[in-house]
């Protein structure tokens, strides 16, 4: 496995406004992610998953440590790391198609005609072609999130960073998007980091699950899901349910133990 993304000894501490109390959010934490890999972040809530994700995306600055992408040291956000937020970040002043096309706006690697093509491609992929000229206040929350996902994909990032993107969606929309995301990850070899609190979602999508400790976050366990349930079986709805549930219980037990620590500490 080549080390596509390399997080080395990253730490992050938040200070209260008066500078007196500190909140250690990330301890020296190291992590590597291979090109094309789908990595799911799991951990008790408030443990620092969002913070770590934002540091990788360049939207938050780590105190110490470094992050490299294909060997390049990263600082600050850029188009190589696309972010899909938990809240719907589609732009209300643009229609669905223009929102998605916005993803191509700052690309210099493709022609204007290709931008139109790519826009239509991703609009179709997220199933919104029929809503092309709808403004986003006329479509549902799930559709808005699909717009945001298509927009990010249209910008062609090297990595896709998704922070609980399906959290607020209804079950059908979520399942639909989960399978589409697996397809994109496998067909386009799009490296993806995905934060979730839904263990089943993590197992369904993951090549690898990374479980974090209670705050400050460190890696408690990494699980190679492919070794337990081949990704093909999961994509075809043919996963061995026995294995699926025992893996789920194993993960839940680890998170529960971490969660208990948080409760005892406070």
């Amino acid at each position, binding site marked *: 496995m080549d080390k596509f993304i390399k997080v080395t000894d990253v730490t992050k501490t938040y200070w209260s406004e008066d500078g007196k109390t500190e909140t250690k959010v990330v301890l020296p934490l190291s992590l590597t992610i291979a090109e094309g890999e789908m990595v799911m972040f799991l951990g008790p809530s408030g443990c620092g998953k969002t913070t770590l994700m934002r540091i990788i*995306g360049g939207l938050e600055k780590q105190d110490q440590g470094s992050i490299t992408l294909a060997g390049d040291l990263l600082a600050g956000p850029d188009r190589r790391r696309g972010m899909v937020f938990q809240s719907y970040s589609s*732009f209300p002043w643009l229609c669905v198609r223009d929102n998605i096309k916005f993803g191509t706006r700052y690309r210099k690697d493709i022609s204007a005609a290709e931008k139109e093509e790519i826009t239509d491609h991703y609009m179709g992929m997220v199933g919104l072609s029929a809503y092309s000229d709808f403004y986003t206040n006329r479509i549902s929350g799930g559709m808005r999130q699909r717009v945001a996902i298509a927009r990010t994909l249209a*910008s062609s990032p090297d990595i896709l960073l998704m922070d609980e993107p399906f959290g607020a969606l209804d079950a059908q929309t979520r399942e639909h998007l989960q399978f589409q995301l697996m397809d994109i990850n496998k067909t386009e070899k799009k490296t993806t980091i995905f934060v979730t609190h839904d263990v089943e979602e993590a197992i369904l999508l993951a090549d690898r699950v990374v479980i974090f400790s209670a705050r400050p976050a460190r890696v408690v366990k990494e699980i190679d899901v492919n070794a337990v349930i081949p990704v093909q079986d999961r994509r075809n709805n043919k996963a061995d349910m026995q294995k699926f549930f025992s893996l789920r219980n194993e993960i839940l037990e680890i998170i529960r133990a971490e969660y208990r620590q948080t409760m005892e500490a406070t």
Partner: protein
Amino acid sequence: MLKPLFVFRHALPRKTEIILGIFGFFLFLTIWHMTASSGVIRPEFLPTPFAVAKAFIRLFTERDFASDIIVSVGRVWFAFLLSVVIAVPLGLMMSTYRAVGAILEPFIDFVRYLPVPALVPLLVIWFGVGETSKIAVLWMGTFFQLILLIADDTKRVPTEYIESGHTLGASNGQIMRHIIIPAALPNMIDNLRITLGWCWTYLIIAEIVAANSGIGHMIWSLRRFVKTPEVMAGIIAIGIIGLLTDQAFRFAHARLFSYQRR
């Protein structure tokens, strides 16, 4: 057919709304007329609507009120636009760069609480009784309010929009032009409309204190001869101009930001 009138938040047909609005005006005029013609209040204090309407026409035929209106409207728009072109960029900067905000906010908050009428004597000492002092009064009255309103509108643009811009590869300037401004624009236009209304308040103050032309000056000089119908007609003229401007802004707002319609 009348049922929608009694259901909470039930939408009304546009036509019904207009008819009701006109009805409201007539109700007001009727009460006014009945009070004025009852003889309880002397006509020097409260003339009838008809007397005011006649005075309104006289203002234009006998006193060249039209040129007073032009002068006043010109002052308002000149000062207003002067506020806008400085306040909008500064307001955008204030909430985009924290340092700019930190420098300007305390000072602006201070100036904002100085009552503008209290500044009039000072501004007259500085600029005399010519056009400059009137523009200065209007500018002082709107600029410092507007800059904070614009800064607030900018601050309310969700951080996710700006961060999305960064991760889509936009530069700072592109984020400003392509994301922050379009996102804040509907609220900004609304605040411009409200600020323009304040401009009229300060204009009348400025024209009463130091002017020899304009609506405020006209009203104030007619007061000396207790020409109450003319005074009231002048005030109504201000109301009409205000109403028309406001409606024009609302119309433009609805057109420009049709995407907000549900």
